[in-house]
């Protein structure tokens, strides 16, 4: 070998004596590229497994993990169904989730078709309005609905006055499902609308040429093509409603209806002597359910190709004319937006500026800033506001950076285990927030070198849990943005002599910045709204907006809750507006 290489070196020296081709050190055959790639994999593996493994372990130990001397047991699972009444909880959950799924699809599918595929006055405004859940958490929506439509709500009382009776009962499974469906319909809407926008408009023109009218085209061409997004979003909505805590907790608590998440909440937090074995067993079962839903989703997506009508050529969709039906559609759509979202939120904001909020007495009589003064007078509440901002600020930067790294390893490297990195980054999507909370609570109890006690009860614990929960969204927003950067740019840098790490820092970093900024905005908002993992991790020092609102609500202090909720919405709106302005400025430069 050495005799062979000799002549080349000589000729290379003659040829370009001034500079040598780059060399990178690879002790034991491992370069820094691999070190970074394996480090990302290991980090994600630890992060994702940290809450899962202790949960599984706890479900078969007869004593809490933080106590010594536990033994193996399966009694948790048997007791779950005998003493704890988990069967009824499961039934409630399935009922609630199914009803939510049906209702949200019933809202979303017609709306998507009408907005995207027909001539609708103000269609773009509707598309914009459908983004409202991005700014408002389901917890806040729940408060708003109760304030307006609850048994003592503003609208309910008014209806009672006028008609003598209220034809609805919010504190029931259908009531919960309706609220949740209003909150989740935009998810299904976005999936269906995107699919409709991408599908080839010439399919419809073909039907039209064959003599089909608008309604026939809708029924026989458009709707059948929508099957994949419908199935996909149905599973998504179903799994979100299985894990959601806010609405079932607010509505179910007064009347004793329990679903999965509230069961964990009550048994873990509100009982005097929580049975951790039963809690672990319940968490394990819920985990199995949500993970299998994701597996199902992945399987269904695999053979969705036969519905693909996306071709390279971009066609401008021609819109159908529905005639008089379009006015009906407009009324229905704005009824949903106004009654579902606008009225409850407006009511909540109004509630924050008044002492008494009921149609029986003009709320303007008691207009006040007292609710806000109370919030700002209490160190605890101010602290929770700051905590939320720190969690969202520190968390969004960290999570977005991790997401960029993960996407780079998973999609832009030759790393053999790139797929594993991607799966690890996406798994938290299927982990219920409350289980992430419980899981980390146990993980801190088990963690070696005293790491657990250092983190337990601090704001860092909340950042880790929220960050993990926001990671899939960050990954999902970064991946397509990075994939839009042509792969030949990396290849050009590699051939020019940069290794993978240097390619990132010298070439891609600047190009990735917009993707990073986008993920930053997204995760900031997500982490500002988040609260369910925190209910198990909170202490007096690390309360955040969500947990504070929840405890104020149980104390019956609706005014303060409304004030905090209004603040949260305002912060989100200001942040998004500022970010939009900043990014726009960047584009012009």
């Amino acid at each position, binding site marked *: 070998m050495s005799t062979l290489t000799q002549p080349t070196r000589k000729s290379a020296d003659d040829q*370009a004596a001034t500079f040598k081709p780059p060399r990178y050190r690879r002790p034991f055959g491992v370069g820094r590229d691999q070190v970074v790639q394996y480090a990302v994999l290991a980090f994600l593996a630890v992060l994702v497994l940290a809450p899962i493994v202790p949960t599984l372990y706890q479900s078969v130990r007869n004593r809490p993990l933080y106590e010594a001397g536990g033994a193996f047991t399966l009694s948790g699972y048997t007791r779950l169904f005998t003493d704890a009444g988990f069967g009824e909880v499961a039934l409630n959950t399935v009922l609630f989730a199914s009803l939510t799924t049906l209702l949200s699809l019933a809202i979303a599918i017609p709306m998507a078709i009408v907005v995207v595929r027909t001539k609708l006055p103000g269609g773009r405004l509707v598309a914009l309005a459908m983004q409202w859940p991005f700014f408002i958490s389901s917890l806040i929506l729940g408060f708003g609905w109760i304030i307006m439509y609850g048994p003592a709500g503003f609208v309910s009382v008014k209806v009672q006055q006028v008609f003598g009776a209220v034809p609805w009962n919010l504190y029931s499974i259908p009531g919960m499902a309706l609220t949740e469906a209003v909150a989740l319909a935009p998810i299904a809407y976005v999936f269906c609308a995107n699919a409709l926008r991408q599908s080839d408009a010439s399919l419809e023109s073909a039907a039209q040429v064959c003599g089909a009218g608008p309604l026939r085209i809708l029924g026989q061409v458009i709707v059948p093509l929508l099957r994949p997004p419908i199935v996909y979003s149905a599973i998504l909505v179903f799994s979100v409603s299985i894990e959601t805590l806010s609405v079932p907790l607010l509505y179910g608590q007064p009347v004793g209806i329990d679903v999965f998440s509230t069961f964990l909440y009550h048994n873990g937090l509100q009982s005097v002597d929580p049975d951790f074995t039963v809690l672990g067993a319940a968490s394990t079962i819920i985990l199995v359910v949500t993970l299998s839903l994701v597996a199902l989703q992945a399987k269904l997506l695999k053979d969705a190709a036969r519905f693909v009508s996306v071709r390279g050529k971009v066609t401008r969709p021609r819109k159908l004319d529905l005639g008089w039906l379009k006015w009906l559609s407009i009324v229905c759509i704005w009824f949903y937006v106004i009654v579902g979202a606008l009225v409850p939120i407006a009511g909540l904001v109004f509630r924050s500026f008044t002492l008494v909020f009921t149609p029986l007495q003009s709320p303007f009589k008691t207009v006040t800033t007292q609710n806000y003064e109370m919030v700002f007078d209490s160190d605890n509440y101010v602290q929770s506001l700051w905590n939320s901002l720190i969690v969202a600020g520190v968390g969004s930067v960290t999570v977005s950076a991790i997401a960029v790294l993960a996407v780079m390893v998973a999609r832009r490297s030759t790393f053999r285990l790139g797929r594993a990195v991607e799966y690890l980054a996406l798994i938290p999507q299927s982990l219920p927030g409350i289980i992430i909370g419980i899981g980390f609570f146990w993980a801190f109890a088990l963690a070696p070198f005293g790491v657990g006690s250092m983190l337990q009860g601090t704001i860092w614990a909340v950042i880790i849990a929220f960050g993990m929960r926001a990671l899939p969204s960050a990954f999902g927003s970064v991946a397509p943005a990075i994939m839009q950067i042509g792969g030949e740019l990396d290849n050009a840098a590699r051939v020019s002599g940069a290794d993978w790490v240097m390619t990132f820092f*010298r070439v891609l970093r600047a190009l990735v910045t917009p993707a990073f900024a986008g993920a930053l905005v997204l995760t900031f908002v997500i982490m500002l709204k988040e609260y369910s993992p925190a209910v198990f991790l909170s202490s007096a020092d690390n309360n955040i907006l969500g947990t504070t609102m929840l405890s104020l609500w149980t104390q019956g202090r609706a005014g303060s809750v409304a004030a905090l909720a209004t603040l949260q919405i305002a912060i989100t709106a200001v942040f998004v507006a500022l970010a939009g302005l900043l990014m726009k400025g960047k584009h012009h430069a």
Partner: protein
Amino acid sequence: MPEVTVRNLAKTFGGNSVLRDVTFTIRDGEFFTLLGASGCGKSTTLNCIAGLEQPTEGAITVGGRPFVDTAAGVFLPPEERNLGMVFQSYALWPHMTIAKNLALPLNIRKVPKEKQKTLIHDALDKVGLAELSGRYPHQLSGGQQQRVALARALVYSPTVLLLDEPLSNLDAKLREQARAWLKRLQEELGITTVYVTHDQEEALALSDRIAVMEGGNMIQIGTPHEIYERPAAPEVAAFVGRCNFLTGKVVGHDGMRYGVRLDCSGDVVQVDSDRNIAADDSVTVAIRPERLEVVPPSGTVSGGNRLHTEVMTSSYVGSRYEYDVRLGGQAVQVLSSHGGLTGRVDLVFDPGQALLYADKVELPEEQRDLLTVNS
């Protein structure tokens, strides 16, 4: 300048084999082209040389330095191979000026700033763009971007230059000019060059030698002249230039001249071939449209073979006339300088102008359908 040796290169994706046992040597300073339709494995071969893909099997050596050797477990990452490469999309880094684009490989090689300036200036001067060094890539035209990409690939004096369809994004007129320019530049620099293209004309015009690839196999390596005049396989004849394929059976031979009875019309034609083919074997006669001539039935033209045919369509394609004539049940294409022929004509060709291949050539079904004529 070193030579490039590729031995037994193979690549499989999953169970899908995209490259099979490819072996060739590129001589020092040679302009070597990998030619083939998309999916033939030419880009995979180039990427294996560049190090952007790892072959499943095989070895690549450049100037005696092993780049890959799967048997010995050697793999040199692309950044340490010191090659220059121009990509189809040019891959200029959009956020850097032209000068910065060229400076990056020099920075990596820790070239002093002063030296960098002269090197960058020289490289841009070579491609005639020295005055544009402060611009950003998006401010340049496609042709200019392509030349900058070339300058970036050359600025650090790489050992081998790799070109991945660099002209395919230019419009037709510009492409021809760029082709001539590229040829001059390569000859001037004398750098060993590997060029990938699906454009046979480009390959013929530029290359010292061409390797024709199909379905992951390398079917012929030779000079442009050899490839066009003596295609080793019907696939090569079909891909490089146009070609009519007529199947038939050998009815006898006299030395190197074979008599072949054509399946489509029953005529017997004489074809020269240095292959050893037994009587009664199925064969394919391949003949290029421009080697055929059509004459009126009465006309006299010297030529060994004369077949009675009928003109189906004729079209004027600029410098010549293109005829589709019916030969029994098959359409045959002819390029002729004689215009205005219709009805019955005679097809004439010399035995030395046709090629004989053992076995019948199976054309793709779609092509076969288009060539079959109902009589």
